[in-house]
């Protein structure tokens, strides 16, 4: 059993015990870490923090609705080969020139340990995670066109994020270490703010957090502001040199907190109406 360095967060990325336990389990067991939670709670940043603390380069694979599992392994660029054959460029006879490794393939082929982030895995088709089961389990795959096998020399650290939109297949879930990122409470948020905006006036932080949680939890919004919005908001407030904020109709730089037209309207409505919006 090889010793490994425990993940303890980084200077810029605060963690809690549960998250550390999950990351360390994933490192120790060599299983992918599946991170879920609402948007803006730092799922993607976690991969960066893990990469930083391990000192390994980070490979990112952004999954889209059109992404296929195959794309992560390798792509056979037939069109390029066809072009080359027509214009006599390159060595057309060697298919290997036209095999391009995807993020997962690169992570396997690398001589050092890599951290691979598979971002927003739930965006893709239902079958997508299932198609990756074998590769993530065995950490190897075969390139059909050339018959070559790509096997991981050093198991990459795989971090998978999901936005909680769709269910993932059970077989896939079973192979992962799972962590659900809670939305931070005010005390933890205070420390997050301190990391991003060190030395901010205590009184302003109190007010900002008060307003933030009132807007977030007290109002019915389509898209509730999250940590990243709060950090941005404070940055703008600081730039503008504002020393205090208060929850009223003319909340400064509201646009950084609320991103949807309807939410801005709802905000104005619920404040102007004078109605108790926390029904």
């Amino acid at each position, binding site marked *: *059993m090889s010793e490994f360095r*425990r993940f*303890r*967060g*980084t*200077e810029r990325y*605060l*963690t*809690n*015990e*549960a*998250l*550390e*336990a*999950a990351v*360390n*389990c*994933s490192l*120790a*067991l060599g*299983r992918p870490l*599946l991170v*879920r939670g609402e948007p803006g709670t730092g799922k993607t940043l976690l991969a960066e923090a893990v990469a930083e603390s391990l000192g390994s380069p980070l490979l990112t694979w952004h999954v889209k*609705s*059109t992404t296929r599992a195959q794309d992560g392994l390798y792509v056979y660029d037939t*069109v390029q080969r*066809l*072009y080359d054959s*027509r214009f006599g460029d390159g060595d057309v006879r060697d298919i290997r020139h036209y095999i391009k490794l995807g993020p997962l393939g690169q992570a396997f082929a690398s001589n050092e340990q890599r951290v691979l982030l598979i971002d927003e895995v739930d965006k893709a*088709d*239902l079958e997508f995670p299932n198609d990756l089961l074998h590769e993530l389990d065995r950490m190897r795959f075969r390139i059909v066109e050339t018959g070559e096998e790509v096997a991981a020399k050093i198991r990459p650290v795989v971090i998978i994020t999901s936005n*909680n939109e*769709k*269910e993932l297949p*059970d077989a896939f*879930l*079973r192979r*992962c*270490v*799972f*962590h*659900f990122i*809670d939305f*931070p*409470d005010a*005390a*933890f948020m205070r*420390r997050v703010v301190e990391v991003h905006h060190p030395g901010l006036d205590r009184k302003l932080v109190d007010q900002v957090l008060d307003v933030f949680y009132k807007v977030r939890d007290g109002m*019915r919004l*389509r898209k509730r502001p999250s940590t990243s919005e709060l950090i941005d908001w404070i940055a703008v407030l600081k730039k503008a040199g504002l020393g205090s904020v208060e929850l009223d109709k003319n909340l400064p730089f509201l646009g950084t907190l609320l991103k949807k037209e*309807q939410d801005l309207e*709802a905000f104005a409505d619920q404040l102007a109406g004078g109605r108790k919006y926390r*029904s």
Partner: protein
Amino acid sequence: MFVDFIYELRRRKVPVGAQEAVALASALSQGLHDASLDGFYHVARAVLVHDEKHLDAFDVAFAAHFRGVYLESKAIAEDLLSWLRDPVRMRELSDEERESLKALDLEEVLEQFEQRLREQKERHDRGNRWIGTGGTSPFGTGGENPNGISVGGPGGGGKGGAMVEADARKYKPYRSDVLLDTRQIEVALRKLRVFAHEGAERELDIDETIDATARNAGEIEVVSRPPRRSNTRVLLLMDVGGSMDPYAYTVSQLFSAAKRATHFKELRTYYFHNCVYGRVWKTDAFLEQIRVEDLLAECGPETKLVLVGDALMAPYELLGAAGWSGDDGRTPGIEWLRRLRDHFHRAVWLNPENWRGYRGTTIDPIRAVFPMFDLTLEGLGEAVTELLRGGRR
């Protein structure tokens, strides 16, 4: 060993098996739990739970199992102690921790641990003195990380500890117990897909490419098109409680099938009781309400509305102002239903009751507002066809 705990979890419908047990054993043998119950809680949760809907069941099982309410806590304490007796596998200690450990020898540590276990059993309603709170515990968790890197929430002192966390049961809203064979329903719902080519041109249109290339005298002309994707949004409103109880099973099947369907761009589900009056609820326990006006503002008219209910109630509940008191307490239920109907282009009512056999009940006025279908596979198919008709009514 912790095997009992695994079975406890299985009893509570957390899908854990040999794979998870082996993983947990491996994690523990590498000392990931730092020889503390807190550590064990977090490690076990990360390895054994795969979905936030099971986090609540895990917390319940953990609290029940490790508090020893109805299990011999002695045996479990033995397990924990045997982990603790294995100092070789402890993680590298910081100077501070070594200091604190030096103050107590191992015997004392174990004694304290046992004592606290016993205390916990005696005063199980207040778990605030559990192992590892507030950084005073010799087990070195819960406080600030000695390296100066922060370790998060429980450091505050008041709320640390696995027991407290398990007791808080904050993951309760995430559970959904139904995982049945809902494949048939899924297939029926799959028809609700409406594909549209939209977005950037990222897909190779092979037919068009061949055509264009041929026209171009064999010179390759690549034609691309935007990918096809589903554009369906669904709003599901379900009647729960009262006369709907006998159909809870069927409705939950529909619900879990809809939840698992991946081809909806958006699926929103809310609950109501008897009839919609002014507001609907996010959970079937009538928590987290949302006003119908707000709901309508959030859902465009192209959303497909599906109501599920038996449409049976006392006439005054539908036609009189029997709704909930509040902003719009005077508006009768039928008026709310009309508002819903008017907002959406397409809406259906699925009824688990054998409604065709009833005359002179509240089913008739509701049928006049919503097209009604059986909550059967066949009826679902018909309802889907109605929803797909497109356009306005």
